[in-house]
């Protein structure tokens, strides 16, 4: 009685695993905003095709091997009065054939892999939009050298256009990852790495640093906003404008505070300050999120951030400047007026 129950447990487990797998598809698990299995670029699709090829093969091999194991366990379990089994030492033909079989399956994986390796690392076409990405502890800077635009933690791209990313890191190793658009590429100090891809369609895609880079590695996120071509041009035009002067008295007070405090040592606001340690804030009010895509860009969040940056992002290099009471609110009003 006990034996038959025991022999059923593995089957039940297998069924459970299959059920989980199916239901996970059913619950549209793969639709996460950071999914890697719904690619939104040619790069992503090439990668995904190989992934699916290998997945189906390995799934098949997995089922055969696990099935054989289960079958053997059920079929050859000890029976009362059974004699000692024949002492089989091996079978050369079997050994040779399954060695060859494994080698052939791996060739099936290797043959489509190699061209994709070369294709995804080919030199970018001259017409590409160039974006210089710099990964820092713990935020991202995006420079468009040809458009003379600098943003932080928010990457704007035109749909359908090839983008050549040049990746570099002033401090430690990071990794640039936009899961829906394509694979990650490490950002290594002392060298410039490249990734080239063209996003398919407008949309918003979260990105994140994928290489452990110290205390707030988890908080080194960013947001990719893919525009249609015309929207992108509009965005570019807006970013190239000098920032507007605040009209609201609270924001004006904030502007005064900003230019008198240590803020100017680290942050750039075109026409106001020229610091380079922290994110460029020229058009800060136009951004949807703050703190490396940690929270929505609202006056409340921003004021809390200024009061105590380390509380929201542990280890952050921006110090607590002792802004209290009205001061953070004024600064927030000013920064959010910079559309």
């Amino acid at each position, binding site marked *: 009685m006990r*034996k038959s129950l025991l022999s059923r447990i593995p089957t039940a*487990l297998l069924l459970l695993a299959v059920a989980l797998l199916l239901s996970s598809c059913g619950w549209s698990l793969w639709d996460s905003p950071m999914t890697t299995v719904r690619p939104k670029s040619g790069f992503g699709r090439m990668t995904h095709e190989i992934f699916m090829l290998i997945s189906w093969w390995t799934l098949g091999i997995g089922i055969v091997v696990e099935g054989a194991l289960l079958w053997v366990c059920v079929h050859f379990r000890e029976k009362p009065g059974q004699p000692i089994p024949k*002492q*089989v030492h091996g079978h050369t033909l079997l050994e040779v054939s399954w060695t060859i079989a*494994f080698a052939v399956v791996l060739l099936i994986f290797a043959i489509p892999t190699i061209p994709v390796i070369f294709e995804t690392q080919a030199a970018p076409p001259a017409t590409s939009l160039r974006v210089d990405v710099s990964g820092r502890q713990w935020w991202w800077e995006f420079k468009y050298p040809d458009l003379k635009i600098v943003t932080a933690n928010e990457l704007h791209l035109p749909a359908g256009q090839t983008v050549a990313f040049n990746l570099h890191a002033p401090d*430690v*190793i990071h990794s640039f990852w936009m*899961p829906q658009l394509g694979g*990650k590429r490490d950002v290594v100090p002392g060298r410039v790495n490249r990734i080239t891809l063209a996003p398919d369609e407008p949309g918003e895609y979260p990105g994140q640093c994928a290489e452990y880079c110290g205390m707030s590695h988890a908080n080194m996120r960013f947001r990719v906003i893919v525009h249609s071509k015309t929207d992108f041009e509009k965005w570019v035009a807006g970013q190239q404008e000098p920032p507007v002067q605040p009209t609201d008295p609270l924001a004006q007070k904030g502007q005064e505070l900003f230019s008198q405090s240590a803020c100017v040592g680290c942050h750039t606001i075109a026409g106001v300050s020229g610091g380079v340690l922290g994110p460029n804030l020229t058009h800060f009010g136009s951004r949807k999120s703050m703190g490396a895509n940690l929270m929505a860009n609202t006056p409340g969040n921003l004021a809390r951030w200024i009061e105590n940056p380390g509380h929201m992002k542990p280890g952050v290099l921006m110090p607590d400047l002792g802004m209290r009471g009205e001061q953070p609110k004024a600064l927030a009003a000013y920064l959010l007026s910079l559309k």
Partner: protein
Amino acid sequence: MATHAAYMTGTKKLTAGSVLWSWITTVDHKRIGQLYGVSAFFFFLVGGIEAVIMRLQLAHPDGTLVGAQRFNELFTMHGTTMVFLAIMPLGAAFFNYMIPLLIGARDVAFPRLNALSYWVFFSGALLLHLSFLVGAVPDGGWFGYANLTSAQFSPSHGIDFWMLGLQVLGISSLMAGFNFIVTIINMRAPGMTLMRMPLFVWMSFVVQFLVVLAFPAITVALILLMFDRLFGTLFFAPAGGADPLLWQHLFWIFGHPEVYILILPAMGIVSEVLPTFSRKPLFGAPVVIYSGIMIGFLGFGVWSHHMFSVGMGPVADAAFSISTMLIAVPTGVKILNWIGTLWGGRIYFASALYFSLGFIAMFTLGGLSGVMHASPPVDLQQTDSYFIVAHFHYVLFGGSIFGLFSGVYYWWPKIFGKLLDERLGKLHFWLMMIGFNVTFFPMHFLGLVGMPRRIYTYAPDLGWNFWNLIATIGALVIVLSFLVFIWNVITTTRSGAPAPADPWDGRTLEWTIPSPPPVYNFATVPVVHDRDDFWAQKYGDGHGTPPRKPVITPAADPASIHMPPPSYWPILLAGAFFVMMSGVLVSIYQVIVGGFLTLYCMVRFMLEYHHQTDVGPPAGGHH
């Protein structure tokens, strides 16, 4: 334990002090094996607690159980502890205890060196964990990537503890590696040719070569890092024109063979357990041996598959992709040979076999997901995501840990003379199997939907919440399974059935001697005629040769068997070395004093038996 009397023949009365003294001065491979086993299990629990805290933190988004810093320390120490202080020493426990028994020897080649390996291991573990007392815990990851671990970006002493502790542990592993290579080559019983050697010994043999060839690479890396941190050199500093990727190459040319250092002992155990419980010889044993050697050899040629995303260029990516896929061939062959062993057998389902079957089932899944990221384009999406976390836990937990537990259940009666309770053993297995899969299978999904590794928190709107919660529940089931194991050990130690010499109808030499073995192992050194020699003695070789009753030679008078006497120089030398290494964190004077102490102890260690020219070198002690 009941075994003390056997160890203490001809010595003074048993007191707590004398028992402790006998353990810290022991040079008996079996007791050193037990010391390794107990230490490994202790650190296994430490690493497990670290893992559970991390899982609790990640059970839901925006977790607040531990902060960013604490979480980074937890995953650093979890990885370091599990690799260097749990799985490796658990393997070492079996090397120490079982290899001499399996090859018909009375001890290892260098018993005092063996004791020194253990005590140096112990001081390395101590050094690493002193960091908790000081409050500067390593936080650079078990892989310690430069230049994050440089003094500029990691100014606290945490990384110092890590880099010094690892250097000490590496020295211990090197000493043990050479010791076992010499033991396996020189100490085999008459008639035990290399091809008659049990599979566990073979896989261990390959592991020792991996250890002595791989550890120097990380030692070099750690020394360069030490120079960078302590003396301001620029080996890994981009500002000085250096490339931090140098660290990654050095680390992974150690780190990838290390994976096989962790898995091959388990493969060896499984290759012993399956034949015993299916009552058939290992199917295609020479092929399993050759593929083990092949895995070890290829293991050195695949390190850069850990670096497909660093920008090595397409040629290097393609080359390492192919070499990585190649390694799947001998691995797959082994799995089919294990199934071939069970095929047509008369399978007796004991706990030990359950864990071996679990090993095959789970290691297969880990191997298959490994093939996926052997393809660099696919790897670019999977590396540093939870998909990888799932993959290597299927290999190291589903593989190594299940395999090592199989060995624990298999050899426990031989080592402790008591049978573990089979019902509790099977309960342990099923809880661990279910808990393991519930914890780690969802991580494949999490990785595919973009959850990166080594993050202490995540946003609630990314679709990761459900599977993270499930994984945490699975981790708690794993905890439950270990409680069952601990309960099993406690109750059966108190009141378990005494184990006969040969409880499983075994096939190899260790089952020919009493459980637990006497201090001299074999009263008469066996003569070997077959791969499964004990089985052939009992049942014939299955091909017409009748059972060969062992020639009963009168057991030698135990008093006449000369075994190496205890020595306190191993622990003193390790202690002096600890003083020197920890001095790096305290004061240059401590380093100098510790250095002289180490030199003094080394000389005394070497000269310990120098004056006894008339009795010959007792370290050999086996004839």
